[in-house]
């Protein structure tokens, strides 16, 4: 399935794009998606502390996807 991944902050800047599409097997997890994103975008390869969200709520890397979620990956937050 094709999933679109939103990128934010340093990840977005490193990727040069606000979102990226990757192909993953059915039932792929967020961690699988992140692996494909990093394979596609070399500047993200050294990012070791990603935070994931599914449909605007935090999710863990082992979360399995249906392909219909709004997915985002971003670095540890620093608002305030």
């Amino acid at each position, binding site marked *: 399935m094709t999933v679109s991944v939103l990128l934010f902050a340093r990840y977005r800047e490193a990727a040069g794009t606000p979102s990226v599409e990757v192909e993953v097997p059915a039932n792929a997890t967020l961690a699988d998606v992140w692996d494909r994103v990093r394979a596609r975008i070399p500047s993200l390869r050294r990012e070791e502390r990603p935070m994931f*969200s599914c449909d605007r709520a935090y999710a863990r890397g082992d979360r399995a996807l249906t392909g219909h979620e709004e997915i985002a990956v*971003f*670095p540890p*937050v620093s608002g305030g």
Partner: protein
Amino acid sequence: MAGLYRIVERPIDVEEAIRAVAGPDRGAIATFIGTARDHHEGRPVRALEYHAYAEMAEQVMRDIGRETEALFGTPHVAILHRTGRLTIGEPSVVIAVAAEHRREALAACAHVIERLKEIVPIWKKEHYADGAAWIEGSGSTPAST
């Protein structure tokens, strides 16, 4: 649940947050204002820039409001966070909590800013005379803790 939870691109002011939480049955309003500071770890800062995953940020701020009400009994919470570029001294975040009595208002307000810094998807970039850097949080993943 009452409350105001918003990511805004324009300057924010504390009066807006206070108006959102004030009411005749409340005797105490505690606020916290984060402002753009001119230095960080000894280095002069010229400007700040905030980037947010706005839709999720507002959702998470609302979750923090619910959590705060559960912990402190304070349903009247406002959180406004600005995005974009800020000049030194401008508010980046304004929190207001109203309660019947001072202690829960103060404790709840302190809780909100701690949680905001932990889990709301907003990122800060510092601009210096000779460059810029994204600031990275301490980064425990909320879903795994």
